[in-house]
């Protein structure tokens, strides 16, 4: 029961964000030929929130959470803890109820460590999330992955809490 309520809340949030998403879409270039950006995606829903890079091009901070919540990781790790799995269980529910939606999973890291290693680590994080969602029955074709490593942080403070926020996989909804 509580899960259904949460789902409806999420869809309500999506409706509220529609005009904003449409406005963003007109300004910025398309999110590109991501594997999930299918033809005929619904107007105003494609690019909801926008990829973190598209947002950076428009001078916006990356989106934190969204309809699908971010999952977080330990330093130099890409395994999913119970909290991350619980978030992904809910994200999988949404993907099942929005069966035409495609997503791109963005792997991010904190800024500690070198740039190329963190790019590879972000790719591992996105893959770990994709594998988990596919294990829950979500079609692999609906999920693309990309790593931004430490290039697009949510915050820049040298603190444990900021580092923890930045070690994330963020889901961008590409279309429904």
């Amino acid at each position, binding site marked *: 029961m509580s899960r259904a309520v949460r789902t409806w809340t999420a869809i309500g949030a999506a409706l509220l964000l529609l005009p904003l998403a449409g406005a963003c879409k007109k300004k910025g270039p398309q*999110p590109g030929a991501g594997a999930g950006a299918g033809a005929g995606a619904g107007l105003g829903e494609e690019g909801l929130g926008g990829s973190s890079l598209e947002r*950076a091009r428009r001078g916006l901070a990356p989106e934190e959470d969204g309809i699908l919540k971010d999952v977080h990781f330990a330093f130099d790790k890409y395994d999913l803890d119970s909290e991350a799995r619980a978030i992904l269980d809910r994200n999988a529910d949404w993907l099942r109820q929005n069966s035409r939606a495609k997503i791109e999973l963005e792997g991010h890291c904190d800024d500690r460590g070198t*740039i*190329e290693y963190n*790019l590879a680590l972000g*790719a591992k994080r996105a893959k770990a999330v994709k594998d988990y969602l596919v294990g829950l029955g979500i079609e692999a074709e609906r999920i693309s992955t*990309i*790593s931004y490593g430490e290039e697009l942080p949510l915050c820049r403070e040298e603190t444990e809490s900021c580092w923890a926020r930045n070690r994330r996989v963020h889901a961008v909804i590409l279309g429904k």
Partner: protein
Amino acid sequence: MRGRVVAFVLTFGLVAAPARAVVTGEIYGPGSESFRIAVSPLKDLGGGGTLGAEFARILSRDLELSGYFKLLDPKTFVEDPQTSGITADAIDFTGWAAIGAQALVKGGVSAHGPGVTVEVRLFDVPARKDVPQVGRRFTGGRADVPRMAHKTADAILAYLTGEPGPFDSAIAFVSNRGGRLKDIYLLTFDREDPVRLTDERSIVGAPEWRPDGRALLFRSYREHFPYLYEIDLGSHQVRKLVPGPVPVLNGAWSPDGSRLLVTRDRGGDANIDLLDRAGGLLRHVTDHWAIDVSPSWSPDGRHFVFCSSRTGAPQIYVGDVDGGPLRRISTTGSYNTSPAWSPKGDHIAYTTRTGGAFQIVVVDADGANPHVITSAGSNEDPAWSPDGRYLVFSSTRGGRHHLVMADRDGRSQHELTRGAADDTSPAWSPRRE
């Protein structure tokens, strides 16, 4: 380590032909800052304007960055550069010796229209003679004067240490300066303000020089996913270097320019591939579920060093490009990344995590004798100078990420960039022709 003679004791002419004048004294390693040299502004021989002072400023900075020299204060100079002689028979060597100069640089400059001629000599003060191995006449345009100064610095180091200096070169790096996302910039040793090379309006990284010095490869997200591109330094044309849909994280040309090692991310598994010049696959060099990233070639083109997390945490490994077992060379620390093989072949530098910060380590090519050369701030992503004597890396010692140049023992360290932006991922060019 301090006071170690790294080059040659020149007193008895072991390097130079015995019949020639040689600079008297010993030159110690970078960081000793012990060899006392005076760089006089060039004498204006007609139309030179400020070029003589510019030449001396650039040459002095190069010599200072090298770490070998103590530059004598121009306020103590005993001759007026504009009225005194510039040949050995007309120089007050006794006066220069009295202020402690072991060596003296003097010369003249003339300019006619766009053309500039510079004549420069190095003098051995105690021997009261000039050093013909260093003396040069340069001709070119006004914009060439900085390179004339760099070539003079490189020649002075060649004479005193047996190895030319690295200053007639450029450093490519990544910066978010100017409110842009990230672009590639070029820095030469005659300027504080780097020149922007790319116009990506995206996130770029991992610049690496083509061995001929005429192009750079780099990573860009211009097509959504990260791929490798090459920019020609003459035309500024950008082309995709590695075809195909698989994201590429970084790459490096073989020393002969015939092959590429790249890191490709196949759905979350980063591995290293060997490619031909056109980007075609020659072989998968690594094939492991863990992270394999950041390949760097040995100068003989037979081996490579890279970073792998196959034991659970990133460590540094060496292998043969054409196959065979891998050998781990990082023996300390639980986080070691971004290796770079010296162009001389004898050392490897990489980044290590220690005490919550990141530092630069230099080891012998077999991993022996690890030596942490930094301590202030976090220091990442080392790249070698073409002479294998210096490293450039990014450092937060001044707050933001700036480029720092250090000798490979870490005794001489200088910030090369300033400002409120982050400068990272340096790559040092080959010497210019």
